[in-house]
């Protein structure tokens, strides 16, 4: 008898439906089952943030959540944040300010930063450093990541003002 569970997710605006073992981790579902390989695995213990996605409006480390726990939820990964024709200001800013090197932490970093700026559109440097502390980068020393997020915030606020 199968102990599989029936799971429905909405990932980057697309409905997904499948049967999975209760022990299947969400990062596995995304990367192996749905072939969404932007979120990475760095630790599988919630420390590094490489696997960060957004679930129902919150930053979540998908390596320590079962797919079953995400049943019925909306998930956004880096792939849903912006692509070649609609880059998110954070994606632009990370390129512009050398906010990445090997790129392994970058999808999680940017995904987390989108939430940070949603929660706090005008963060101080200290607030950025605190708000990003769940995401580890081994390459950049963070200085340019902070700069990138600041630049994106300025850009996004200016765009918002222009739109109003």
């Amino acid at each position: 008898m199968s102990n599989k569970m029936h799971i429905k997710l909405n990932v980057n605006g697309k409905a997904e439906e499948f049967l999975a073992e209760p022990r299947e981790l969400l990062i596995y579902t995304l990367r192996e089952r749905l072939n969404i390989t932007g979120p990475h695995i760095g630790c599988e213990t919630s420390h590094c943030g490489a696997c960060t996605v957004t679930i129902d409006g919150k930053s979540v480390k998908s390596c320590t959540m079962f797919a079953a726990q995400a049943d019925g939820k909306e998930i956004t990964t880096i792939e849903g944040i912006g692509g070649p024709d609609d880059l998110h200001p954070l994606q632009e800013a990370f390129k512009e300010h050398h906010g990445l090197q090997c790129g392994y932490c970058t999808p999680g970093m940017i995904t987390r930063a989108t939430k940070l700026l949603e929660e706090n559109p005008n963060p101080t440097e200290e607030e950025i450093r605190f708000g990003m502390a769940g995401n580890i980068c081994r390459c950049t020393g963070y200085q340019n990541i902070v700069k990138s997020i600041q630049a994106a915030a300025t850009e996004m606020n200016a765009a918002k003002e222009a739109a109003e």
Partner: protein
Amino acid sequence: MKDEVTREERVDNLKGMGCSRKRVEDARFTQGKGNYVDDVKLDGMLFGDFVRSPYAHARITNIDTAAALEVPGVLAVLTAADLEPLGLHWMPTLAGDKQMVLADGKVLFQGQEVAFVVAEDRYAAADGIEAVVVDYEELPVIVDPFEALKSDVILRPDTVDENGKAVDGAHGPRNHPNHIFTWEAGDKDPTEEVIANADVVAEEEMYYHRTHPCPLETCGCVASMDKVNGKLTLWGTFQAPHAIRTIVSLISGIEEHNIRVISPDIGGGFGNKVGAYPGYVCSVVASIVTGKPVKWIEDRTDNLMTTAFARDYWMKGKISATPEGKITGLHCHVTADHGGFDACADPTKFPAGFMNICTGSYDIPTAYLAVDGVYTNKAPGGVSYRCSFRVTEAVYFIERMIEVLAIKLDMDAAELRRINFIKKEQFPYTAALGWEYDSGDYHTAWDKALKAVDYDGLRAEQVQRVADFKAGKTRKLMGIGLSFFTEIVGAGPVKNCDILGLGMFDSCEIRIHPTGSAIARLGTISQGQGHATTFAQILASEIGLPADSITIEEGDTDTAPYGLGTYGSRSTPVAGAATAMAGRKIRAKAQMIAAYLLEVHDNDVEFDVDRFVVKGAPEKFKTMKEIAFAAYNQAIPGIEPGLEAVSYYDPPNMTYPFGAYICVMDIDVDTGVPDIRRFYALDDCGTRINPMIIEGQVHGGLTEALAVALGQEIAYDDMGNCKTGTLMDFFLPTAWEVPNYETDYTVTPSPHHPIGAKGVGESPHVGGVPCFSNAVQDAFRAFGNTHTNMPHDHWRIWKTANEMGLHD
């Protein structure tokens, strides 16, 4: 033809050397479209994972795989017995030793690979691992190298004769069964004599603890044996893909042309991905056995516990000087803990790497170094974690010895450095331990650094702080960390640098396309350094085509020319030189084509930014774009069609980047928490190719230095249990702990490098570790501290304060 564009605009248009060109890699990485090894997916791909030893030292009496083979989804379980008929149960290490691929009768460290379970997916592999039954018989564990050298317990019975006596190793005689080698440099007797007769001698023992490079992406590979064509393709996190191809060929017997090694995007390396690991061998065998592609990806615990530790050097130093502080001699002995197998990734003739750069930036007339390598029940490795081979250890040693000597002399440590620096006019300078430093201007850099931070002002503030502390007005001490380092990178000249007999040259091959764009392929591989960006900049300046029109490709052994890979900051010094030289070959041919097109003699045209012009008549010119087109579209007498070049560059010498770092720290003596108030880093890496990328490398290297100095370690208990196997216990700094860094530079080009560049990726780590450590130690100098061992985590700093009676 009238040229509307100014010369300056033409230069800018190239985006050549010296400009902060934005990185071409970033588009895919910021959109989640990188292609790392775990993103490689092939039809029918299986997943392999290891049964690992829970014991640090044990005999294996039985391995029962029957139950595992019953687990749904499990296809095969490999043990040493399965590998033995293929001669693959052991493999050679880069250090001339050999290492078990799968435990052959015993295990030597916790986490050692015992069996390889191959299954349909990761979950099935994990179930299979649970079902493998291994019977262990525990043996006495040795985690202390000094104890190992006294013990009767023979860790490696395969290295002793029938009488239990150690047989000679790859690096000469061994004086105990647990001894691996003795390696010496310099003059022993004269050094000892100088020190015995010196006015002032400072001595210190220091332990440079074991740590780990821990890139965010762990190691892994995908092996795919195509039995129809007899071709093996191996994707993996390889810092040296070509060397891996050769090694795989040598140990598997598969001919090299039938092996294709591909390093896709690599999520950071820092030395972790230089070596060859059992996972690679097992994946290849499993693919041959099952006929399917097999993926192996380490998890973080596997990574920290088994692949590629760094450091673990017990260093004992003596330094002598005149009463005025002029250094007269340096003596260093190292007991090097190599773990169960000697798997250090060093050039073959250097079992202790370039530890003999330990005279540092100072003019020390007499010196002697001896390193003893020792087996213990710890993981093998000994890689260069973000440094050239053992240079971090060497620089830490000398930069601590200088501080200790300054204390002994009751002298300012900045001044002590200044009076002992090798002078500008002494370059090229041959050091007492043998290296010829190519260039340097240490005094200029040092003065610039001291001035930038107002060094005298800082010292005055520190004196006041000590007074305030003693008066009970503050609980915070102030530490000023100094470090002046000289790196030795760009290994290296084939005459003395090889890995398993492969000379450490590197290569570049360029093809110019008819419409004036190009592809260049190199023998190196980026792990985040931005090669696709910077190598195109070198070429743009050399061949006059815009960097944006040049694709850089690395990491596919079927297409790229042979090279020894990326580590030890060798890409710019070696492959960067090859790139410039290949570019110059292109230019030489372009010159002939231009002369033909302009109907003048070859010598009557000269290169100018992006074109050849007729000397004295700049209005007559052919652009490189036009020349490229002509190369493919016109029959030119005496010249072959096409425009391609390849260069294999054997560097005449290493390069010697240097720098001056200063850290200011406030330490709360009641919590042991250090607050880094300021960090100033001046780097001289010779010619600067891309300042933005250099700065990024400095930020990253300093942060890894901060980690090592202030908390990161691989620690074992007496039973050989690794206590730091997850990111909970192994310190990786977050944005919260890391300060902003101020970067600065001087430029002293390398005289022997075609573009004068020296390499920079590792300098900040090499110079940063002693700088952070010196800051902590300096804070306690006024209370009698001479030396405390790293890592200076909060607990250890608190303990230092406590031992000094600062909590009373």
